[in-house]
């Protein structure tokens, strides 16, 4: 074997390579680590040593004449995909579990409702319960589809200058009734009439609606004390932040990071995807979202930041 030509090819292809003649290293390129070379000098080669030195390289060896050639193949992509697949499997398992659970409730309540043998004082409540689970299921299916579309990169956003003032007022107007029914005071400080941010209209509205909806819901869940949600704004050189502050049930600081994970809903009404979708959408609009709380019963603050449109 002509090591010279082989060496050239290997160098060009940047494949980690080691060639031994007996126990003597005849060739080792820079990709095959120095430590590996040293380790191998005068020692017999064990597969485990090779593997442990470079976890993302899969070493294959073969004999040519009196040489033993080791080639390392980069399998980091395989590892990444394996991880990705694991995550998807878990997502699929939880998604089907949630759908089956909700379907079980709807089917169960309705079957009992139409069952003549079942005598209950307020039987119509069964149908009402089925209806409310059906609404939840419908929200879940919508969120699931949205989430998958975003993950697959299929949700295309149309980024354009948006008038924050107009959009937010419409959303707040929509949510006023809900807040009133939940006994939560909803305050919005005024925002500069002219201010425009860069975003996708639908996505921006969805995010703001989700954040405000959460704020009202988790404030109404508090047993006593003031129940108030305040929306305020601040401009900076490049953008604008929107702060949604509530006096609600709050959350332990160590649990905050879980909120952006799939299916980590903090309330039985939630789909467990709302905040995850919001975060993805905000990032697609080149904005930022973060959530803070000093602890249980200390309220929660969500901070959003969006890029400002050039005038």
């Amino acid at each position, binding site marked *: 074997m002509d090591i010279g030509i082989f060496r050239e090819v290997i160098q060009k292809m940047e494949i980690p390579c080691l060639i031994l003649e007996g126990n003597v290293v005849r060739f080792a390129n820079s990709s095959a680590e120095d430590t590996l070379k040293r380790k191998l000098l005068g020692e017999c080669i064990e597969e485990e040593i090779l593997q442990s030195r470079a976890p993302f390289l899969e070493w294959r060896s073969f004999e040519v004449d009196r040489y033993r050639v080791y080639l390392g193949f980069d399998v980091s992509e395989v590892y990444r995909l394996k991880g990705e697949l694991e995550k998807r499997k878990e997502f699929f398992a939880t998604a089907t579990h949630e759908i089956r659970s909700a379907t079980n409730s709807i089917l*169960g309540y309705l*079957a009992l409702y139409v069952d003549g043998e079942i005598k*209950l004082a307020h039987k119509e409540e069964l149908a009402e319960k089925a209806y409310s689970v059906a609404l939840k299921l419908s929200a879940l299916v919508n969120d699931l589809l949205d989430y998958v579309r975003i993950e697959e990169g299929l949700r295309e956003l149309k980024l354009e200058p948006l008038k924050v003032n107009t959009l937010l007022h419409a959303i707040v107007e929509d949510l006023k009734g809900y807040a009133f029914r939940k006994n939560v005071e909803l305050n919005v400080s005024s925002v500069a009439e002219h201010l425009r941010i860069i975003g996708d209209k639908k996505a921006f509205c969805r995010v703001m609606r989700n954040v405000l909806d959460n704020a009202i819901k988790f404030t109404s869940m508090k047993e006593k004390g003031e129940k108030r949600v305040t929306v305020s704004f601040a401009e900076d050189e490049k953008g604008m932040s929107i702060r949604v502050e509530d006096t609600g049930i709050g959350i332990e600081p160590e649990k905050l990071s879980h909120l952006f994970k799939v299916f980590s809903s903090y309330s039985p009404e939630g789909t467990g995807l709302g905040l995850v979708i919001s975060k993805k959408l905000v990032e697609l609009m080149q904005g930022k979202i973060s959530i803070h709380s000093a602890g249980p019963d200390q309220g929660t603050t969500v901070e959003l930041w969006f890029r400002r449109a050039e005038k």
Partner: protein
Amino acid sequence: MKKLILLVEDNPEHAEIVQIALTKLADVEIKWAKDAKEALDLLKEGLKPQLILLDYRLPGMSGKELLERLREMEGMDAKVIVLTAEYISKAELMEDGCNNALLKPFLPNELIAKIKKYLR
């Protein structure tokens, strides 16, 4: 004498449905535990159910783990029907050692038919 059923279910809607459905059976009393720990506590206190209806995805100790514990428990002769919305087949559930299984979504009458077999 009333026959006792222990229901281990964290989903309050599912628990309510089972409880209402079981009113169709005469002489049956049902006790509801919201998780595996509560169920174990009840059994330790001397509760002797004839039948256990067991959800598999529970907070804390899983239904599968509880089933293993039940199988090791001395003097425990209650039959176990697993009720689950997990992505799993009935055959796999039977291998875990339950007596019967019902995959969610199910109709209340399907559950009643199964229960009747074990309450003779």
